[in-house]
C-alpha cells in the first residue's frame, strides 16, 4: 500500500472512532434532556404555588420586610451565576458567563459592589483564570441538581442578604442562568430575585385577570413572610438549576450532533481522496508493468538477433 493511501486510511479510522464517541454523547444528552425537562415540570407546581403565596403576602399586606423593600442606596449586590461542570456544550457556558459579566458591568456602573457566587466548574475556572474573586462556589451537581443542592446554594445567599450592609451583607440578589425555552432555544438571562419586584407579580395578575384574596395570616404576616422568603429563594434557585441543567444537555446534544455530522462529512471527503489515491496507485502499477513488459520484450527481441 502506498504511503498516501495509508495516511488517508489512518485518518478515516480515527475520525470514525471520534464519530462514534460524539454520536454516543449526543444520544446520552438527548435522553438526559427529557429527564431534566420532566424534573423542571415536576418542580413547577411548587414554584407556582410559592410565587402565588409570596405575591399574595407582598400585595395583600402592608408589612415591610427587609427582603421585599428596596434599600434606599444599594451598595452591594450578589450575583449568582449558574454554569455547568463539563464543557462540550457549544456556547452554553460562555453565554452564561457573558450575561453575568454584562450584568456585573451594569451594576458596577451604577456604583454597586458586586459579589459573585458561582455554580459549576466551568464558571469557577473562568473566574479563577482571570484572577477575579469569587465569594463562594459550588460544583459537582450541575447535571442532576436536587432540592438539597439548591438549599445548599441558597443558604449563604439568604444569610448574606439578611446581614446589614455595613457588616458585609448585600442589598440585592441577582441570578444568571440559562432558560430552557425549547429543545432548540436556550437563552442566558439575568433576573433579580430579591428584593422582590412586585411589579412583575402585578403584571402577571392583570394578565391572568385574577384578584388575590385577602388572606388571613397564621400566625402573622411577618412570620409568614419570614418563613416564606427563604423558601421562595430556594425554589427559584432550584428551578434555575433545573432549567440550566436541561439547557446544558440540550446544548450538548446540539453540539454533539453537529460534531457527528462534521465527522461524517470528513469521512466522506477522506474516502473520496483515499479512493483517488488507490486508483492512482493502480494506474501507476499498470503503467509500470506495461512499461516493464515492453522493455523486456524489446530486450528479448534484441538478443534474438
Amino acid at each position: 500500500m502506498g504511503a498516501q493511501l495509508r495516511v488517508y486510511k489512518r485518518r478515516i479510522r480515527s475520525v470514525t472512532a471520534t464519530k462514534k464517541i460524539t454520536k454516543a454523547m449526543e444520544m446520552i444528552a438527548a435522553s438526559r434532556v427529557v429527564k431534566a425537562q420532566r424534573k423542571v415540570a415536576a418542580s413547577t407546581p411548587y414554584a407556582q404555588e410559592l410565587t402565588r403565596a409570596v405575591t399574595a403576602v407582598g400585595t395583600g399586606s402592608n408589612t415591610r420586610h427587609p427582603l421585599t423593600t428596596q434599600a434606599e442606596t444599594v451598595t452591594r449586590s450578589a450575583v449568582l451565576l449558574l454554569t455547568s461542570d463539563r464543557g462540550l456544550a457549544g456556547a452554553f457556558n460562555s453565554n452564561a458567563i457573558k450575561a453575568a459579566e454584562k450584568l456585573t458591568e451594569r451594576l458596577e456602573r451604577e456604583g454597586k459592589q458586586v459579589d459573585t457566587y458561582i455554580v459549576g466548574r466551568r464558571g469557577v475556572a473562568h473566574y479563577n483564570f482571570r484572577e477575579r474573586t469569587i465569594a463562594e462556589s459550588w460544583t459537582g451537581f450541575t447535571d442532576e441538581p436536587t432540592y438539597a443542592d439548591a438549599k445548599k446554594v441558597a443558604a449563604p445567599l439568604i444569610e448574606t442578604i439578611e446581614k446589614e450592609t455595613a457588616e458585609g451583607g448585600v442589598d440585592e440578589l441577582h441570578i444568571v442562568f440559562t432558560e430552557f425555552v425549547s429543545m432548540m432555544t436556550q437563552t442566558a438571562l439575568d433576573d433579580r430575585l430579591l428584593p422582590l419586584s412586585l411589579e412583575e407579580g402585578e403584571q402577571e395578575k392583570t394578565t391572568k385577570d385574577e384578584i388575590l384574596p385577602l388572606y388571613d395570616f397564621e400566625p402573622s404576616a411577618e412570620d409568614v413572610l419570614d418563613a416564606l422568603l427563604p423558601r421562595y429563594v430556594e425554589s427559584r434557585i432550584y428551578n434555575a438549576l433545573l432549567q440550566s441543567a436541561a439547557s446544558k444537555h440540550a446544548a450538548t446534544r446540539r453540539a454533539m450532533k453537529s460534531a457527528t455530522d462534521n465527522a461524517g462529512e470528513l469521512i466522506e471527503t477522506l474516502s473520496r481522496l483515499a479512493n483517488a489515491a488507490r486508483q492512482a496507485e493502480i494506474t501507476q502499477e499498470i503503467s509500470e508493468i506495461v512499461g516493464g513488459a515492453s522493455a523486456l520484450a524489446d530486450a528479448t527481441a534484441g538478443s534474438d538477433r
Partner: protein
Amino acid sequence: MAAELHVALVAADREVWSGEATLVVARTTSGDIGVMPGHQPLLGVLESGPVTIRTSDGGTVVAAVHGGFVSFADNKLSLLAEIAELSDEIDVQRVERELERAKAEGDAAAERRADVRLRAAAAR
C-alpha cells in the same frame, strides 16, 4: 353532596397528592388548624407533623410534612412542603432504623423527621 375543597399537596420536586376533600387538618406554628370548604383565605406556616386529609369519598389520606406552608383561597387548598410523603410511602422499619441512628448520633433534625414519619405511618 357535601361541599368539597380541592387539595394539592406539593413537595419541592413533585406533586405528592391532589384531589377533593371535605376536611384537612394540619399543624401550623400556632397550633392545629382544620380547614373545611368555605374557610376564609388563609396563609399559614406549617410545623413538621402529620397532615390528615379526609377525602370526599370517605377515605383518609395521611402525609408526613416537614415544614412548609398552607394556603387556602377559592376553595383550593395548597400544602407546600420541601419534603412530604404519604403514609403509604413510608417504610416503618427503615424509619425506625433511621430514628435509632439519629438518636445515637444526636441529630435532632433527623430524629424529628423520623418521628414525624412514624406518627404519620401510625395514623394511617
